[in-house]
């Protein structure tokens, strides 16, 4: 789960990571102008109008602009609200008092999948694409993976100090940057983050070191110990595909794709393989949907209804290889869905194998559903699924 900047700063703030003075979360041009007026009125010389989208490169795309007057802020607001940044439409804007910048650095803590630990990256060069810095000036940064055993009591001040010193931070800010790193690491651990990135980390003229930006990803699997992460659900924020949002609310693993063959199967790997087979048969999948292990008839029916809700879906490929998922439950779910839904024109190509597959096939045969086309194998199911999508 990715947070937008202002949420990341909230998370930093409550964990003692220094951030700029609090700004305002806005949705409209008028709100932005009012927020600018308020913050300028508080004695701040300038405000920054910042698009809140879950993608990088906001600045380059014109999504981050400085304003010294309300009129200027309004003009920026007009160009930023509704702006499309790499497919992310700006619906939320953060207006923040501007900070004076003396220097810019880079600092992040992220989960290291390969090293199975916590990776700290610290660079004297910030505010730019860190991958670019890695390429052009690999000496500029320090990368260190720490194991859970090494950080059982958090990140030690000593280690933090060594990292920022080695990265070449100026002596005046070593202590405060190290302290910030200790707190950033604690935030990453306490909040079950998989990424906590500050780019840029800035040095102000008064030598204070603060997070000017915040990029945070949280682990969805840890939602149970963070009140479901409900605090980060904000309407209008990077609006997902509505079907994906509905699926998430129902606990269904669903990804919207851009083809016409609806896909439903059990197991993430098998469903991905189904998308591949559909493409190799000349079609394109409309979605990824994993009903999971041991799906009940009801879950099957619910999932099928979701796939059919997508107007792009012209046929559906149901691909089940049952382990703990039982054939008769799958069949019952298909029958239930056809009963529950209004009549639908799409054909369902059903391939059923594994546990109790024969029972399931017999049930479907007896139900004699007009929509169902039975197929023997995964390969043999793909061709008719694609052909049926093409015909309609």
């Amino acid at each position, binding site marked *: 789960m990715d947070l937008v900047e202002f949420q990341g700063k909230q998370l930093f703030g409550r964990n003692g990571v220094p951030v700029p003075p609090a700004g305002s979360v806005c949705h409209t041009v008028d709100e932005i102008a009012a927020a600018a007026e308020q913050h300028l009125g508080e004695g701040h010389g300038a405000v920054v109008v910042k698009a809140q989208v879950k993608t990088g490169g906001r600045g380059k795309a014109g999504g981050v602009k400085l304003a010294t007057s309300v009129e200027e802020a309004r003009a920026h607001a007009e160009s930023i609200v509704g702006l499309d940044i790499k497919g992310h439409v700006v619906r939320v804007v953060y207006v923040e008092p501007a900070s004076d910048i003396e220097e810019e650095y880079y600092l992040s803590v992220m989960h290291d999948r390969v090293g199975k630990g916590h990776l700290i990256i610290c660079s004297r060069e910030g505010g730019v694409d860190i991958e670019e810095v890695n390429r052009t000036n690999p000496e500029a940064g320090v990368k260190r993976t720490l194991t859970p055993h090494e950080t059982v009591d958090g990140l030690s001040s000593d280690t933090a100090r060594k990292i920022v010193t080695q990265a070449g931070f100026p002596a005046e800010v070593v202590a405060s940057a190290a302290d910030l790193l200790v707190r950033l690491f604690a935030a990453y651990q306490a909040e079950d983050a998989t990424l906590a990135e500050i780019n840029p980390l800035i040095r102000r003229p008064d030598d204070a070191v603060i997070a000017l930006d915040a990029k945070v990803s949280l682990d969805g699997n840890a939602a149970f110990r963070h009140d479901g992460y409900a605090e980060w659900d904000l309407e209008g924020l990077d609006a997902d595909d509505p079907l994906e949002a509905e699926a998430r609310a129902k606990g269904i693993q669903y990804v919207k794709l851009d083809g016409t063959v609806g896909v439903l199967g059990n197991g*993430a*790997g*098998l469903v*991905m393989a189904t998308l*591949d*087979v559909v493409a190799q048969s000349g079609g394109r999948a409309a979605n990824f949907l994993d009903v999971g292990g041991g799906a009940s008839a009801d879950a099957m029916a619910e999932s099928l209804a979701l796939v059919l809700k997508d107007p792009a879906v012209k046929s559906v490929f149901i691909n089940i290889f049952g382990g703990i998922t039982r054939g008769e439950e799958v069949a019952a779910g298909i029958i239930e869905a056809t009963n529950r839904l209004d009549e639908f024109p799409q054909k369902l190509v059903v391939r059923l194998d594994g546990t109790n597959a024969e029972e399931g096939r017999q049930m479907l045969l007896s139900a004699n559903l007009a929509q169902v086309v039975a197929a023997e194998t995964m390969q043999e199911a793909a061709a008719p699924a694609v052909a049926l999508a093409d015909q309609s």
Partner: protein
Amino acid sequence: MSIFIDENTKVVVQGIGSQGTFHAQRNQAYGTEVVAGVHPKKGGTPWEELGVPVFTTVAEAVEATGANTSMVMVPAPFTKAAILEAHAAGIATIVTITEGVPVHDMTEAYDTVVRRGGARLIGPNCPGLISPGKSNVGIIPADITMPGKVGLVSRSGPLTYQIMHELAQAGIGISTCVGIGGDPVIGTQFLDVIKAFAEDPDTEAIAFVGEIGGSEEQLAGEGIRDHIPDTPVVGYIAGFEAPEGKQMGHAGAIVKEGGPGGESAAEKKEILEGYGIAVAMNPSEAAQLMIQRLA
């Protein structure tokens, strides 16, 4: 022979709710020696469905029954503690079926149990493993396969069953099939399994089924090139059609936008082919390639 589990495997089950009981029964019916269940509040009572005792702790179960393998089926919030408990009790092979375990929990469990503890941890978020004719620990349907010479390793459940099934229809059996799991942090990597197969005299060919995300498949490919260049190996990477930046069901199955590269199915295929490994475009083709290699 086989790897990781065989006729000497004695299983203690952590998590004896309806799911744990259902699968433990299936494992037992296959001939797996299930020796005990563990439940913090039901110690001292019999596990009726299995006909074995329940203990309060894994340590007590090990002491009383000589269990050497654990199957973890407790809910995700308790999985880290269950794995650490099994390890502390001296269990050598810990098979974790549970999905949805927080990545920080697994990173810690991996560090303690595998990196520092030297135990065999399989999973989480995996179907378990089967050495046909000997032992089945987890949720793999045993009746779709049979003993044989092909070692199978995969990140995914039903996709693995698909390939086992197609091989079985061609008369090809399995030495051991290991489902390593679909999470970013798993206890046993592709490469670990490949190395174990390389040392198993009865595994004569290897099929491995990867997916998008991470770089474990590439490491396995290097291992194959370096250690067993003459062993027939066939691979498949699921997710050629997966878009960037979208998690495809498994927590680990994501090609990161602006990520390190090498995470897409096409890139993995190319890298593996560079190591001389035949990589199929779909599971049926993988099975067919294996059938041809063994013909």
